[in-house]
């Protein structure tokens, strides 16, 4: 009662309030009083998703141990004194009821909150760190709001039950989270206090979706890294601008005004927007009760104290505005009541729990620091009674199945409303198309106008990772991970029909022709390449406008011109390295532009007119030098030889044919990709790892087959040899045995066995005779030569004798055993033969 005494002293100083010790009888009365409250019709049983058989709970759930009873007395005393000293403060949340005894109100069980904490470490590495653990708890459970929201719940259910029902109040959820964190080695506490309405009711509809917040940050980082310019010693002066300074000043003035106006308008709009978004005033501001988790620094390399909201699983700094006040906090060892003023939120609070002016504890308990000092003095004070220890938790071990961990959300899915966004999450493999996350963003606050729908997929066989649908333009963007069979990286389109606008990005290095991007617009197609041996990086195709409003078959679209661009090839001279070539199919000519030489501004150009070709492939006209025109570049250089130009033209004409083929090929490729995509989309398949034995049917089947095969092979070994086979063979293997034959077979078989038995007996007898004869012979020899035998020989004789005697003994044993077994064997065989399906009908 050390604690109590201390508390009393303190209270004496505080105001000299009368103290009153409760007898156990009174305590019992109090319990009864509470009982009545609990059975009141306003109390609804918790929203259970699964039927839970409470009677199966261990006895600790139904009964209080003597220690627990003592603890309850202490707690009740503390509570009554507290309410006496601080009549204005709310009653403490100390000893709620547990889940047992709903059906039989007579044996309702009160449990002290600290004993409901069951420090447990779950065997999953994914739950070892606080953030993962907290987000799992938040995801796994459904909140049951407090009713009324300003009163603590009457009942605190055990974490084991909570994991089964997956539904609980913030107190239940905090208890579970705190248990797991304590198990993982954190210095964690449950905190009860006051928070803003949004937090208590898990209303995130005014918050930005965390998925969207991340994106904005990334963009900001990208822009900030640009401004870096080294200071240079030399700089060219910009050319002088011949403009009036006055005019410029006027212009600037005007621009400034316009800018100011724009800014003002923007601010105004922003202000309006904010006003619109502001939450309606809360009548219960500062009174809404909440329960959350506090993690103190010191263990698991935590540097600063912080809060965790168990409903969202997010960590908050201590000074966060969402937390309005702290009433009390507890862990598995003790319960501390806050003595500090929380008028201005929790930002100024101290968490030195050993300081009694700030924290009043229910049990007297030395903090760890003092413990060391105490150890030295212990011998002196050993006579003092040991302080009361918190009894061990009444809760059973918390267990979580792997399926539950994987399923994560209750029922495998959850939908959360954020500001202008809705987030839906699904367990992998839950949906047949592999959808795991869907984020819908809206343009308005009421969430009516859909802006963008983004969907994330997992384990898709077609490697689809993300799909984004922009409602305004109706454009769909699909993103694929590397390894996609179609080599696609992203694909944006309006419809999957060929010939419409689209843009396909391919994974770098995946396509053998180095294709990186293909953009299609009406009448055009542009392909971009990378790392090609011929240094081509872009091919832009312009289709001719079809005379009758566009033909249906896109493969047949006539080409108007094709523009190909090349990178500079360092191995060639610039004036001979093609930079761009344009095949003008419609005009029948080819234009080639070469790369610029180092300090020139005008590139060398050549334009070739193709010789006309007759329909049968013959040239209609021979080549003349006039067919090539162009700009030569260097006036001092000799004009190129005609042969050179002619050969270039021939090469270009060959290239032109190839290019036309290439384009055809690209068109077919597009059609194939689209067809494949459509097929994949209509029947999505999921990829299942071969290590995932639960889902992979093939592996499972394979394993079953293996087991079956093994069993069969064992069976085959066991299968006995057909005894009748030789006898049946003697009769010529008849299909059906006649009665006579059957009799004969039976007799033969038995006779045969008898014969073999006799044979065996004879063999044994022969061996016996041989050994005894040999022994006798040796004995005789010994007797005759006994006198003139050397010691060695004598020894050898003795050894021989003992060995032979042993052998004879063994043979005798075997003979007797043989005799014993023979009739048994005979009987067994007879029985077996009689039961044989081939003989049975005749016997």
């Amino acid at each position: 009662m050390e604690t109590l005494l201390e508390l009393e002293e303190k209270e004496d100083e505080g105001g000299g309030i009368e103290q009153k010790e409760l007898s156990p009888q009174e305590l019992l009365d109090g319990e009864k009083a509470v009982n009545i409250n609990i059975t009141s019709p306003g109390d609804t049983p918790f929203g259970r998703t699964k039927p839970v058989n409470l009677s199966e709970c261990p006895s600790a759930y139904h009964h209080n141990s003597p220690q627990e009873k003592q603890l309850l007395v202490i707690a009740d005393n503390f509570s009554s004194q507290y309410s006496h000293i601080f009549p204005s403060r709310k009653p403490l949340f100390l000893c709620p009821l547990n889940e047992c005894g709903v059906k039989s109100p007579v044996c309702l069980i009160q449990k002290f909150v600290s004993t409901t904490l069951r420090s447990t470490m779950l065997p999953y590495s994914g739950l070892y760190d606080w953030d993962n653990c907290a987000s799992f708890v938040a995801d796994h459970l459904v909140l049951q709001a407090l009713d009324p929201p300003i009163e603590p719940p009457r009942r605190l259910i055990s974490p084991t039950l909570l994991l089964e029902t997956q539904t609980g109040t913030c107190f239940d959820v905090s208890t579970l989270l705190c248990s797991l964190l304590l198990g993982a080695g954190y210095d964690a506490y449950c905190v009860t206090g006051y928070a803003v309405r949004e937090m208590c009711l898990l209303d995130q509809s005014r918050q930005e979706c965390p998925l969207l917040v991340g994106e904005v940050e990334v963009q900001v980082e990208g822009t900030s890294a640009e401004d870096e310019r080294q200071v240079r010693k030399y700089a060219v002066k910009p050319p002088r601008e011949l403009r009036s300074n006055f005019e410029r000043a006027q212009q600037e003035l005007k621009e400034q005004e316009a800018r100011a106006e724009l800014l003002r308008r923007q601010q105004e709009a922003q202000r309006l927007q904010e006003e619109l978004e502001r939450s309606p005033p809360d009548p219960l501001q500062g009174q809404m009760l909440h329960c959350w988790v506090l993690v103190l620094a010191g263990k698991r390399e935590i540097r600063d104290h912080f809060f965790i909201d168990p409903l969202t699983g997010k960590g908050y700094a201590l000074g966060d505005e969402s937390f309005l006040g702290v009433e009390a906090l507890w862990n598995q060892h003790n319960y501390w009541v806050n003595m500090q003023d929380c008028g201005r939120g929790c930002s100024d609070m101290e968490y030195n729990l050993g300081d009694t002016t700030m924290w009043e504890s229910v049990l007297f308990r030395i903090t760890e620091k003092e413990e060391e000092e105490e150890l030295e003095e212990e011998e002196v004070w050993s006579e003092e009674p040991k302080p009361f220890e918190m009894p061990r938790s009444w809760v059973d071990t918390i267990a979580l199945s792997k399926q539950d961990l994987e399923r994560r959300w209750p029922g495998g899915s959850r939908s959360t409303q954020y500001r202008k966004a809705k987030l839906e999450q699904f367990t992998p493999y839950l949906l047949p198309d592999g959808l795991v996350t869907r984020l819908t963003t809206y343009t308005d606050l009421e969430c009516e106008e859909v802006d963008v729908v983004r969907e994330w997929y997992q384990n898709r066989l077609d490697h689809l990772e993300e799909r984004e649908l922009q409602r305004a333009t109706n454009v769909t963007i699909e993103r694929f991970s590397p390894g996609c069979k179609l080599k696609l990286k992203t694909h944006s389109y309006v419809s999957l029909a060929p010939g419409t606008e689209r843009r396909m990005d391919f994974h770098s290095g995946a396509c053998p022709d180095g294709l990186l991007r293909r953009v299609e617009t009406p009448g055009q197609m542009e392909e971009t390449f990378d790392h090609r041996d011929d240094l081509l990086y872009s091919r832009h195709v312009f289709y001719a406008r079809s005379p009758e409003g566009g033909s249906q078959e896109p493969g047949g679209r006539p080409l108007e011109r094709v523009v190909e661009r090349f990178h500079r090839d360092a191995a060639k001279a610039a004036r001979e390295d093609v930079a761009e070539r344009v095949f003008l199919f419609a005009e029948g000519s080819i234009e080639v532009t070469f790369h610029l030489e180092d300090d020139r501004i005008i590139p060398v150009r050549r334009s070739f007119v193709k010789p006309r070709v007759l329909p049968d492939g013959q040239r209609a006209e021979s080549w003349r030098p006039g067919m090539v025109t162009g700009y030569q570049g260097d006036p001092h250089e000799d004009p190129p030889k005609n042969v050179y130009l002619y050969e270039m033209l021939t090469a270009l004409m060959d290239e032109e044919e190839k290019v036309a083929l290439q384009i055809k090929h690209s068109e077919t490729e597009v059609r194939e990709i689209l067809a494949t995509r459509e097929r994949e989309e209509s029947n999505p398949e999921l990829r299942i790892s071969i290590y995932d034995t639960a889902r992979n049917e093939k592996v499972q089947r394979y394993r079953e087959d293996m087991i079956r095969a093994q069993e069969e092979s064992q069976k085959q070994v066991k299968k006995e040899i057909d005894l009748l086979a030789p006898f049946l063979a003697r009769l010529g293997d008849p299909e059906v045995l006649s009665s006579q034959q059957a009799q004969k077979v039976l007799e033969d078989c038995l006779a045969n066995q008898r014969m073999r038995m006799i044979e065996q007996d004879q063999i044994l007898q022969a061996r016996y005779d041989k050994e005894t004869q040999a022994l006798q012979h040796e004995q005789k020899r010994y007797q005759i030569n006994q006198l003139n035998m050397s010691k060695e020989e004598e020894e050898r004789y003795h050894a021989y004798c003992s060995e032979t005697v042993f052998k004879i003994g063994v043979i005798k044993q075997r003979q007797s055993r043989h005799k014993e077994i023979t009739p048994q064997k005979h009987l067994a065989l007879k029985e077996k033969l009689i039961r044989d399906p081939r003989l049975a009908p005749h016997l």
Partner: protein
Amino acid sequence: MIRLYGKVEQSVMDEKILQEAVEEQGPKEEAGQISKEEGISFNAVLQLRLEYKNILKIEHLWEFTSLTKLQLNNNLIQKIEGLANLTNIKWLDLSFNNIEKIEGLETLTKLEDLTFYNNKISCIENMDTLNNLTFFAIGNNCLGQLDNVIYLRRFKNLHTLNLAGNPLAQEANYKLFIAAYLSDLAYLDSRLLNGETKKQAFAKYQYAIEEIRHNELQTLKATEAEQKRQEELQQHQEAFVENLNGSELFDSMFAQDPEAQKLNQLPGVADLVQTFKPQLVGLCIQMFESGFAEQKLREAEVKAFLEVLQEAVREKQQRSAQLVSDFEKHRKKRILDLKQVEDAAKEEAQVNQYMTEIKTLCDSCLLLELQLVDQLEEIIKDFERNITDMVGSFIETVQGIFAQCRDLENHLHEEIKDIAMATLEKVAKNEVEDNLPDDVRALFVDKETVMNAVGASHDSHMLRIDNREDKLVTRINAWMMNLIKKIQDEEVWRNRKCISEIQYFIQHLRNQLEEVLHQE
């Protein structure tokens, strides 16, 4: 007919043969016709085949400078000559001739494939420069010395060798010897040298091979060390402080001064010189270090300047190129329009408009160029001023240090003079030690001789210092002048080239326009 009787009609490699060969082996069909009309220039021919022509002497090939493949097999050639100009040649076939000696291939450094099959060569030699050789056939010749093959070790890329039919191929250990000495060879006499053969060969000739390798390594190391030393000296020369990082100046001062050696024998002088040396060397090293630091600064300065210069030029070039390409986009349409217009007045208007456009293009390009010239002129002036200042300050520093050197020398001179005077007095009083050599003693006949000797030594030392100083100052000034001149010249050249390009292009456009009008 003549062949039948064992006599061969020898032919001469004249222009006609060459022309025929070139035409015969040149482009075919329509291209051939075109090229024939136009005429083929020899210096553009890439391959030439001159086989079975009974050629006695290689002549008239100097014009075929871009030739990469030349086949002269099955002729009567006796001497390799006249190939010195064919520097691009990669493939040379001289098989089935009467060559006796390898020669005249020194300039053909790109040669990769060389065939001397069936000749009368008795020694592999004169091929030191053919570093790219990968294929070498010298079968059916008169090679007798197996050791001669070791010559081929220098060709690191050689992987095919043909030696069959030579006397040396008869030797018992022929194959193993070659496999051992030419360990990178892949094919010998058209057969693969497999790993086992190479192993055997190596086992047999291990010691000899290792010795050769060791020697080669030594030579390689020596050459590398020499190269490194040369590079270092080059660096020092670029900083204009070569040979100042040691006692070289001191050595040169005393080495070529007979008087100093004599005076050195006097008591006390050697000590003086010994204290003088580290002081002078210290000053030299000071100069050396400051020279290097200054060179770094100058390099950075030049780099910064050139960067800005190039960037300005590039930027202007891009802008002009943009102008031109914009113009080009419209040009085609204009020409087409012009061709279609029929009304004379309209045509006139269009022509005028086109002319104005050309003029505008020309003007804006020239304006950009002019602006650039102004800009560059300014920064070049800045650079000139800066670099002159830098060089000036460096020269000042160096001169200061040289002045200190002179002071040191003067000081030394004074002290030596004192000792000399003292010795003279001693000699006069005959108190001098006996160990003084006679030639030194001869100095001390009278005061004048002594003073002359001391003075001459001093003057010679001063001269050395002055020379070194002059050398440094002259060289650095020359470098600076060259640099500035080069930059200015390059700028002028760039400017002229650019303007001529614009003019040429404008001319080209006008010609084109006239052509179009003319056609109509």
